[in-house]
């Protein structure tokens, strides 16, 4: 009820223009969340639950590079700044004791070794974990991940701090669950991407999004402490926002959002630089469409988006140089340094070709196997768990080629039937292709550097997961090949196949660690 003074004030006030009252940020967030399609929210929840199951299933630190990512987050919390690149890794006493207690060194890469199996081992592990040890005497895995940007680790500092009073295992589990939440964001944006890119086939949105949510290598990674997860989510958001731009047009708010998504990716993992050329191309196409001509204004919104993306990177570089004592460009001091390696363009291109496909006659052979597409990538997607040490029997990888070929055929049929519509969207498709090529080229380049330095390949399918929205689109486009009569059946079959793949992968991991 208004008081007398208030009534007086309101009488003196001139008749005001009716401007909308600014709403509190929480209410705005609630309104925005309410606008999220229910299907997208459910698919996201499915991804979170599945990733959470994987996070509990796999023993601590038995995910790729998990000890290093944990060490980075721990360093960030303990020292208030990210670690610097180092010539070697030194784990904190607390983490080292936990790794010893968990038989990490015996198990890593040796699939025949089981985990803690007896009450006696469990008691020893508990005693070692309770003894603790310093958390501040490590160098944050400066060699392995010291060149990486700090955003994912800043996020992981929250569960780390929440479980600060517990053991290393408590902290790892809570951090893994935080990663599982990020998987939900990835699938949410994947659904929204499909909704924008394929508006005419609503049921395919769910098929594609669930295909990602149940992809076991994605769920496995999503249950890990690993900065790849934030990169996947940011990349999915980027795909969604670009698709939105292609469908509804680019405006200032969307440009800022695209820049923010790219910035998040760039601050999550260095690999995100592979997304920059494709994003720049997409923004140019969108800018040209908006202005209908090439003039200075055509570049205004693309420049705004790229400026927003660059801002946090420049800020990190400034902090690196002035406060954190890191090299200005962190990554060049780490795994991507090419000084003294003398890379050659011809050799690099030949390597990149063989990295994804197969050597052509006359190509100098790199040790990547006779047919990398099958041996590294399809095999990797079917399943390589733990420290790339847990596999299905060989026959499973051969049988898996059947559904892969079937989905490729269905996809081909859909694309053929819709080729006229595809031609009308050539700029959009070229942008997605550029995003894919950029990510793949970055991974191949990193592997080439690794090949020159260590004579080893870093080919792991998880590095291509920033392209998961495109994988979802392939699944979503395969289903409609059945026409109105069979599309529902094909969609269901694709999802059941993904679920079966996930279930048998979990059983494989159970057999590897616990049987």
């Amino acid at each position, binding site marked *: 009820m208004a008081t007398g003074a208030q009534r007086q004030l309101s009488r003196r006030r001139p008749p005001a223009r009716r401007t909308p009252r600014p709403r509190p940020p929480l209410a705005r967030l609630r309104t925005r969340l309410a606008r999220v399609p229910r*299907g997208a929210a*459910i698919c996201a*929840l*499915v991804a979170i*639950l599945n990733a*959470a*199951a994987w996070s*509990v*299933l796999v*023993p*601590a630190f038995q995910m790729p590079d998990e000890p290093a990512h944990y060490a980075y987050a721990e360093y960030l919390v303990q020292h208030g700044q990210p670690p610097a690149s180092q010539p070697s890794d030194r784990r904190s006493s607390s983490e080292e004791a936990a790794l010893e207690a*968990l038989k990490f060194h*015996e198990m890593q890469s*040796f699939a*025949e*070794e*089981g*985990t*803690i*199996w*007896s009450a006696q*081992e*469990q008691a020893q*592990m508990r005693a070692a974990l309770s003894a603790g040890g310093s958390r501040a005497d490590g160098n944050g895995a400066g060699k392995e991940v010291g060149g990486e940007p700090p955003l994912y680790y800043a996020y992981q500092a929250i569960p780390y701090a929440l479980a600060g009073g*517990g*053991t290393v*295992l*408590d902290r790892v*589990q809570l951090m893994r669950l935080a990663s599982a939440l990020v998987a939900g964001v990835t699938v949410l944006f994947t659904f929204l991407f499909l909704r*924008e890119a394929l*508006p*005419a*086939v*609503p*049921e395919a*949105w*769910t*098929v594609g999004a*669930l295909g990602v*949510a149940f992809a076991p290598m994605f769920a496995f990674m999503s249950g890990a402490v690993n900065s790849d997860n934030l990169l996947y989510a940011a990349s999915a958001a980027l795909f969604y926002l670009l698709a939105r731009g292609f469908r509804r047009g680019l405006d200032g708010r969307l440009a800022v959002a695209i820049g923010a998504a790219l910035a998040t990716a760039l601050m999550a993992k260095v690999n995100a630089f592979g997304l920059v050329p494709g994003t720049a191309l997409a923004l140019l196409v969108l800018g040209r469409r908006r202005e209908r001509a090439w003039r200075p204004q055509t570049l205004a919104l693309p420049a705004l988006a790229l400026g927003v993306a660059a801002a946090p990177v420049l800020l990190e570089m400034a902090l690196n140089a002035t406060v954190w004592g890191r090299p200005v460009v962190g990554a060049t001091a780490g795994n991507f340094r090419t000084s003294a390696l003398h890379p050659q363009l011809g050799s690099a291109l030949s390597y990149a070709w063989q990295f994804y496909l197969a050597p052509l006659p006359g190509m100098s052979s790199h040790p990547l196997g006779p047919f990398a597409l099958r041996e590294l990538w399809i095999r990797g997607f079917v399943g390589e768990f733990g420290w790339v040490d847990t*596999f299905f*029997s*060989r026959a499973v990888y051969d049988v898996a080629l059947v559904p892969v070929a079937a989905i490729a055929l269905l996809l081909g049929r859909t694309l053929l039937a819709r080729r006229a519509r595809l031609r009308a969207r050539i700029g959009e498709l070229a942008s997605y292709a550029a995003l894919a090529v950029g990510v793949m080229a970055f991974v191949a380049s990193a592997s080439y550097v690794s090949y020159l330095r260590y004579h080893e390949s870093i080919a792991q399918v998880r590095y291509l997961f920033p392209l998961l929205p495109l994988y979802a689109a392939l699944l979503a486009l395969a289903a409609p090949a059945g026409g109105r009569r069979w*599309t*529902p*059946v094909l*969609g*269901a*079959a694709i*999802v*059941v196949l993904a*679920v*079966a793949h*996930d*279930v*048998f992968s979990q*059983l494989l991991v*159970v057999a590897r*660690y616990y*049987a």
Partner: protein
Amino acid sequence: MDASAGAEDEPQDAAGERRRRRTIALAIGFALLALGVVATLSRDAKGRIRTNGVPAQAVVAIASADPGGAGAGAVRTVCQDRELIPSGTGAIRIALTGFRRVPPRLSLTVSEGEAVRDAGRAARWDADADVLVPLAHPLARSVVGSVCIAALAPEQRYWLRGAAVGAFEGARAGGRRLPGRVHLEYLAADGGSWWSSIATIARRMGLGHAWSGASVPLLIVLLTLTSIALGAWQLARSDS
């Protein structure tokens, strides 16, 4: 085109028919999946009781019944002393690579001091690069003794995989000490399916985590089943 045009323009009965087809396909698919899981879990579990802790990193010996013709360094018999073979062991898995088109012809003996405790029956190829040798009788008590592997076929060669160890800890072959030991796994007596091992596996899953007990495997099952049920429900109503 509007995002929901595809669904809204469709007559109700056509949409209902599509939903019915999808639901039936899902039901059939999940029934087949359940059958597949049951069939898989009904297979021989060959549960590991323990390993000898030697990682299968590299070839430590080449075994052949004709070592002279098999190349430099080949041996006929490899014996590994001070192996702890747990009670209940019914088979031994050897990390070993060979020509898989023909059955492996190997003999295996388990000795305790001078006494032979058991002899392996017919060896067979197991996983991608392993040989499984069932014992004649499951061991009633744990034995600390020697495991000897001998090649029987002169035309076959076997690459035994293991890891380098200290100077006096290597396996023996023809009176000399090898630089490494072979990886061995001691498996429970066969005849049991995965179903019969579920309690053991569930107990192990409850160890080595942030918390312990049966709630660990139960939570994993619950999370997985909930995600599947939720996904199936969403797909069934996906064009509504």
